[in-house]
């Protein structure tokens, strides 16, 4: 099977280029296995990966124009030659390895932890099954970055717009019955940039390897904001 992978090494002084590799495929082969096979052919080829099972979110790459996790993508269904590029819009460190600092900074900015005003009880903070259900579709995010790096609004304003991933996380804490900082969180998202650069383009929904819907989460935040201001 033919692969064309993005190669770039800042030290080499060469411009980025696509290098072709031919990989012998096996039954049930995932793209991550193919990238490992390519690495065996050329040890200088760099890409991130860890768990190999769609849990850690390390091996997100752009394949034939769409962001996806290499470990959960079977090579069998891919159009040849398979074009493998780094996540779009992020500075390339080397080959498929990109600098995700900006992405993590936006994630940190939504303060992704529970905040309590009341003193913590002796036991756990209880939650009803219905309250817990509200977190479904929000808490499963693995921070792979497929969504935010597929978002045009994040391409144009990565410093000011939080991006689908951070906003999904913001919604996850806004919806949590144990969190007591909703107003503070909504105030932090105010202004024309942080939340409202989302134009419901929905690239994030299309690429999320966990099948989550950041656009819907953003809509939920807007509804909460509206409710709080009227």
């Amino acid at each position, binding site marked *: 099977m033919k692969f064309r992978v993005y190669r770039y090494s800042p030290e080499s002084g060469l411009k980025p280029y696509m290098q072709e590799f031919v990989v012998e495929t096996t039954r049930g082969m995932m793209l991550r296995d193919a990238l490992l096979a390519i690495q065996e052919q050329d040890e200088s080829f760099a890409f991130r990966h860890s768990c190999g099972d769609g849990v850690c979110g390390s091996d997100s790459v752009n394949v034939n124009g769409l962001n996806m996790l290499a470990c959960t993508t079977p090579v069998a269904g891919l159009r040849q030659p398979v074009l493998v590029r780094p996540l779009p819009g992020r500075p390339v460190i080397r080959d498929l390895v990109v600098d995700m600092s900006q992405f993590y900074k936006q994630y940190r900015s939504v303060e992704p932890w529970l905040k309590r005003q009341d003193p913590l009880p002796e036991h756990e903070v209880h939650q009803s099954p219905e309250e817990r259900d509200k977190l479904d579709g929000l808490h499963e995010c693995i921070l792979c970055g497929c969504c935010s790096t597929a978002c045009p*609004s994040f391409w*144009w*304003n990565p410093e000011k717009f939080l991006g689908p991933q951070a906003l999904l996380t913001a919604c996850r804490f806004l919806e949590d019955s144990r969190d007591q900082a909703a107003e503070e969180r909504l*105030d932090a*998202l*105010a*202004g*024309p*940039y*942080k*939340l*409202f*650069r989302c*134009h419901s383009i929905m690239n994030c929904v299309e690429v999320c390897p966990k099948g989550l819907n950041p656009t819907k989460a953003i809509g939920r935040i*807007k509804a909460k*904001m*509206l409710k709080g*201001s009227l």
Partner: protein
Amino acid sequence: MSQGASGLRAWLLQRATALYLAGYAVYLLLFFILTPPRDYGAWIAWIDNPLHAVGLMLFLGALLLHVWVGFRDVLLDYVPLFPLRLALLALLGFGLAACGFWALRIIMAPLLI
């Protein structure tokens, strides 16, 4: 929420004006299909009804506000350079205001005769 209003307010304004524009567009379409004004006199008679005049002015206002929010979004997305963005926003604001006053003059003219 003073700073935040420019995000939420613009978004809400865009949605609200879109609803009116969509409704009025259907009305206009039906109006032109069912009872198209034949001549200038028919137009004058139509606009002479305060309900029609106010409806049309509301349409005009909604349209201008909708255009303002839409273009502002485009400028916020694609023009990161602040002085240039400010200049373009001012130009857009004056342009839309001019369109508004011009259209208002056209709507009001038959009423003032």
